[in-house]
């Protein structure tokens, strides 16, 4: 963020102190040092780093507790069969299965982590500072919860999810995708910038396994209608019914724990929820 030099300097000093000062390892980062302009253009060529393919993604720094080389015993016992597995999982015992796309300051991510302690959860955020904040918070929470090993399953990457999901995730890798309070992009000219569209839904379908679920929530009714229309039109998805939706354990959390959800709560605004299930691919047209 440009900002005045003094402000930037303060931020840098603060951020540096978090890593150098031992006593601060367990203290949560302060949001005010990480705020950033609300909108990033999903079409532009940001200075993004991303792997050429999911095979080449190094997850070990994000989930150190789940790397195989961290766990000597398992490494030694590995027969040849194990080794094949090792390689295909990039040296990781687990793969990410829950993605919070546009995770912002990570409210949902940190609420989901204890709910699914055995599942790797990843926040994806395009804004650099916001991503940094989440990463610092992960670090602090891991330090605070050293005894229980809590929050080892949560992490965050900076990425443009609209372009590079297939660089991070294999086909059918994910079980849940959260799209919480996406930027509404009101202008019609900018509708292609929306994080939900008929064509992008094909990519969500690609990274989701059949039976996997996309969770959406927004306070903008028009955007809700848009998301419903675009997912319902897409043959790879079906919408969950009201009852099934409300029985989903993540729905209440998504309403209450997202930062935006809290803001809407304070302003007594409405929240619109819709869930979509990834269906099996049909047989090829000629092979019915």
């Amino acid at each position, binding site marked *: 963020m440009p900002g005045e030099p003094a402000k930037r300097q303060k931020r840098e000093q603060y951020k540096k102190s978090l890593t150098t000062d031992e006593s601060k390892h367990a203290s949560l980062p302060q949001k005010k040092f990480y705020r950033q302009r609300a909108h990033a253009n999903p079409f532009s060529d940001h200075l993004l780093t991303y792997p050429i393919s999911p095979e080449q993604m190094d997850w070990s720094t994000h989930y150190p507790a789940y790397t195989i080389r961290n766990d000597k015993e398992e490494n030694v016992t590995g027969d040849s069969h194990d080794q094949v597995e090792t390689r295909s999982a990039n040296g990781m015992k687990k793969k990410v299965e829950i993605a919070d796309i546009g995770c912002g300051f990570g409210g949902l991510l940190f609420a989901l982590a204890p709910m699914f302690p055995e599942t790797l959860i990843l926040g994806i955020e395009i804004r650099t500072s916001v991503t940094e904040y989440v990463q610092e918070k992960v670090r602090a929470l891991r330090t605070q919860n050293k005894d229980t090993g809590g929050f080892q399953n949560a992490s965050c990457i900076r990425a443009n999810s609209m372009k590079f999901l*297939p660089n991070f995730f294999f086909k059918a890798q994910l079980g849940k995708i959260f799209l919480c309070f996406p930027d509404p992009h009101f202008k019609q000219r900018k509708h292609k910038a929306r994080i939900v569209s008929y064509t992008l839904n094909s990519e969500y379908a690609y990274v989701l396994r059949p039976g996997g679920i996309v969770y959406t929530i927004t306070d903008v009714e028009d955007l809700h209608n848009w998301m419903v229309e675009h997912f319902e039109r897409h043959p790879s998805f079906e919408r969950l019914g009201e009852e099934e939706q409300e029985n989903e354990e993540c729905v209440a959390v998504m309403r209450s724990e997202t930062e935006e959800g809290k803001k809407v709560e304070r302003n007594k605004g409405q929240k619109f929820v819709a869930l979509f299930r990834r269906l099996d691919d049909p047989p090829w047209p000629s092979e019915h």
Partner: protein
Amino acid sequence: MVPYQCIQVCERSTNGSHEWILVGASGSKLVIQSSNGATRTWAGEDKYMNLKENETEEPPEKKVKLSSPNEYSPTFSCLAISNDKQYVVAVTAEDKCVRVFQINSDYHLHEISQRCMARRPCAIALTSDDSTILCADKFGDVYALPLISPAEDVHHESLADEPNEAATQKQFVPAASLLTVHSGRNRKVLEEQIKLASKGRMKTKEPLQFKHELLLGHVSMLTDVVYTTVSGRNYILTSDRDEHIRVSRGPPQAHIIECFCQGHEEFVSKLCLTTSGFLISGGGDPYLCVWDWLKGRLLEKICIRTAVITFLGEQPELASTLPHNTEGFKIAISGIWSTPRNYNEVNEVLVVCEGVPAFFYVRLESPAVVETVPLNGNALDIAFISASESICTAVVAVDHMHKPWFTTERRADEGRGRLQCFECRDGRWGQDRKLESELEWFSRRAPDTDGERRDAGPALLADDSVRARQKDEKAFRDVLYGVEKLRKRSGADEQD
């Protein structure tokens, strides 16, 4: 006389006799020469016949152009020939228009439709049954258009990405109320919308007045599209300005992504299937990628950059332009063609790089072999004529206007031909002088129409026309040399 930015060969057998028709796009004109010596030029004679009502409702800027027909001459940017050899499908850049021409029995081109898209088409392909044109655009979407537009199809389907379109006539309802929580910027846009709506001036986009179906989309400019069938299954392959190559099912299941071919580190600009079914791709990387594309598996990378550097180093007049340290030397692969099927079944392609006066003959043996064939000018496009079972002939469009290895500097001697012909015998490419002289008219004289504005010297033109001409020239150069421009500039558009 400008170079041929695109050429295509249409080979067909009529009444038992084999013939070929060479079709070239030179600026805003189409030029034709057939094997029996017929020569034709299409310079937009009937271009105002097919204007539909909605096209006159375009923004004022375009209206002006239409009312002064002399200056309205968009540049062709893509050419394709239907599998049944009856039609030429072309794209013109400035007006984003997909045009279909029928090849008449007297070799005249008859334009049967003009469909101007909302976004500029970057590549086109036809389905194998010729029913559908796949049009890949600058905003990353692929649309299906029927090759022959049904007569009364004013009631087109609405776009899948624009569900609002169907409702454009409805009164505008703001997308949210001011009570909902928004960032400052969104709030401003919203307030603006409400203001405009109250004045009844809310602009909504004009829907396209012809049948077009959104099949799939990337969030990146598309650079190429290929349609193919393997064991009864149809596929669409698409490449983009990021590093992606996507393999989707063909319609009606084009929403299903089968896999990605991941391995490029720079933009991908061209896709090419070899006769035995491998996919070869190239773009801003120093190498070609060879794929088992059904599995998304990278089989091999074949370095082209080394061949380019070696070639340039051997040219007395070009060697000095090579940087001392060639490590960061960049090439932009702008064309890949598989040699025709009836020639033989090996995996071999011809490759050209933007602004390089040579083509590269690449055989996928182990290890791969790359041979260089020098040209008189920068290579622009290649088409094949299969003269016989054993001989393959390549017609190469070369840039006679710009200096070899330069994309902007004009050369002094523009009199040279715009085509060079080569034949491959026993794996060696040699110049085919006979065909070159047969194509003399096409190469050096066409199009022979009167009053060519584009070629008149600037001094002869009024100010306005000079400006129009400069604009034309820029559009033309973008079509000729638009590939290197796909490269991302590091640091560009950083938002932080």
